[in-house]
């Protein structure tokens, strides 16, 4: 693009900044969703962007927003885009922040160069292209912010859904909820083994009541966890096997021979207590037996 057109754009921005500013704010407010952001914030964002845009247009190349002169502008838009994503703006509303500058800016350009059609067309094309690029940039950042959020939530969900609980001194339980994939198996294994080390537990019960389906892959993951726990010196019991899952396991030909399996967590816990040499009995029965001993 010709240098003169760029100078023209920068000049228009500089000359009419005070007029463009309130008009732009008005256009944005008319576009709706103004309740999500206070008027002062909107005004200050608008002012910041306008001054950064003007500086960048004066110093940098207007047809290349990746240049160093645009660093500040891009940074400002990044912050704004992230903030708006948090505040609940949609991507198009976020991009409209930049696009809505066109209307007041074009009005000024037309007023100034209306008589010179060729010049007007050149400037319009220039402004259009740079604002489009900046608008798309905000959408991109918005999307990236969302993706980061999703990744973080996935990670949190993974950690939340794999609690290791201590049922008794030396007995750990791992109630699994949701589908077991490789990534989750890794987290499950790590947290279980770490708890085995921390508590010195000799028995771990893996309860799969909350696992919707067990296929060969899930079974393999379970067996891996059991094998790793065994290497650490802890026995594993798999409990919570529903009738359909028992059928599926047999139909698939999955070998669970080396692993002790129980239908319910209660059964598994009973076995665990027995291994520890403990037994559970009714309180009044125990009381009457001590009473007879005294007598």
């Amino acid at each position, binding site marked *: 693009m010709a240098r003169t057109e760029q100078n023209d754009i920068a000049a228009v921005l500089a000359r009419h900044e005070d007029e463009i500013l309130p008009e732009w704010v008005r256009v944005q407010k008319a576009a709706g969703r103004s309740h999500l952001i206070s008027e002062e914030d909107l005004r200050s964002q608008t002012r910041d962007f306008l001054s950064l845009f003007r500086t960048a247009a004066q110093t940098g190349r207007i047809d290349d927003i990746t240049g160093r002169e645009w660093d500040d502008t891009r940074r400002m838009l990044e912050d704004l885009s992230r903030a708006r994503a948090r505040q609940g703006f949609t991507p198009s509303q976020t991009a409209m922040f930049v696009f809505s500058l066109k209307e007041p800016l074009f009005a000024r350009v037309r007023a100034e160069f209306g008589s010179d059609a060729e010049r007007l067309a050149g400037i319009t094309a220039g402004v259009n292209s740079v604002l489009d690029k900046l608008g798309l940039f905000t959408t991109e950042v918005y999307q990236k912010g969302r993706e980061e959020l999703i990744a973080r939530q996935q990670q949190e969900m993974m950690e939340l859904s794999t609690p290791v609980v201590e049922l008794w001194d030396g007995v750990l339980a791992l109630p699994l909820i949701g589908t077991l994939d490789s990534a989750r198996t890794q987290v499950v*294994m790590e947290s279980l*083994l770490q708890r085995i080390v921390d508590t010195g537990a000799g028995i771990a019960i893996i309860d799969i009541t909350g696992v919707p389906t067990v296929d060969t892959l899930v079974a393999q993951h379970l067996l*891996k966890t059991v*094998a790793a726990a*065994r*290497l650490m*010196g802890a026995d594993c019991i798999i409990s919570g096997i529903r009738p359909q899952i028992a059928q599926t396991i047999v139909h698939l030909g999955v070998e669970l021979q080396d692993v002790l399996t129980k239908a319910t967590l209660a059964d598994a816990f009973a076995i665990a207590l*027995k291994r520890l040499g403990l037994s559970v009995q009714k309180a009044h029965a125990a009381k009457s037996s001590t009473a007879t001993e005294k007598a």
Partner: protein
Amino acid sequence: MERIPILKMGGSLLVSIQVDMHDRLAMTLQDDLTARIVKDRARGVLIDISALEVVDSFIGRMLANIAAMSRVLDAQTVVVGMRPAVAITLVELGLSLQGVRTALNVEKGMQMIAADGEPEDDSSADRES
């Protein structure tokens, strides 16, 4: 020459591996250990690997060999103190050390060997119920 010390604790032998294993060291350990099992009439061998951060297939095979040799000499081998990361790596490598018994720490390993010395009657009942 570098050697791995073998300590006698009651009727068991305790081996703590704290250095990187290599072929010659492993051979020496196997020689020493089998000799000591016979000499001390040991019933159990505890191998402590809590200091090892990396256990590869070589050490895995060595552990399995020692377990097999001890079994021939009528001594139980218990590998104790494996770290979680090591356990995960071994499982991912497909080495689950079949035939080697494991315990969380030396204390539990000793208990395990002591329990095996006694006549077994209740442990078999456990499995069936």
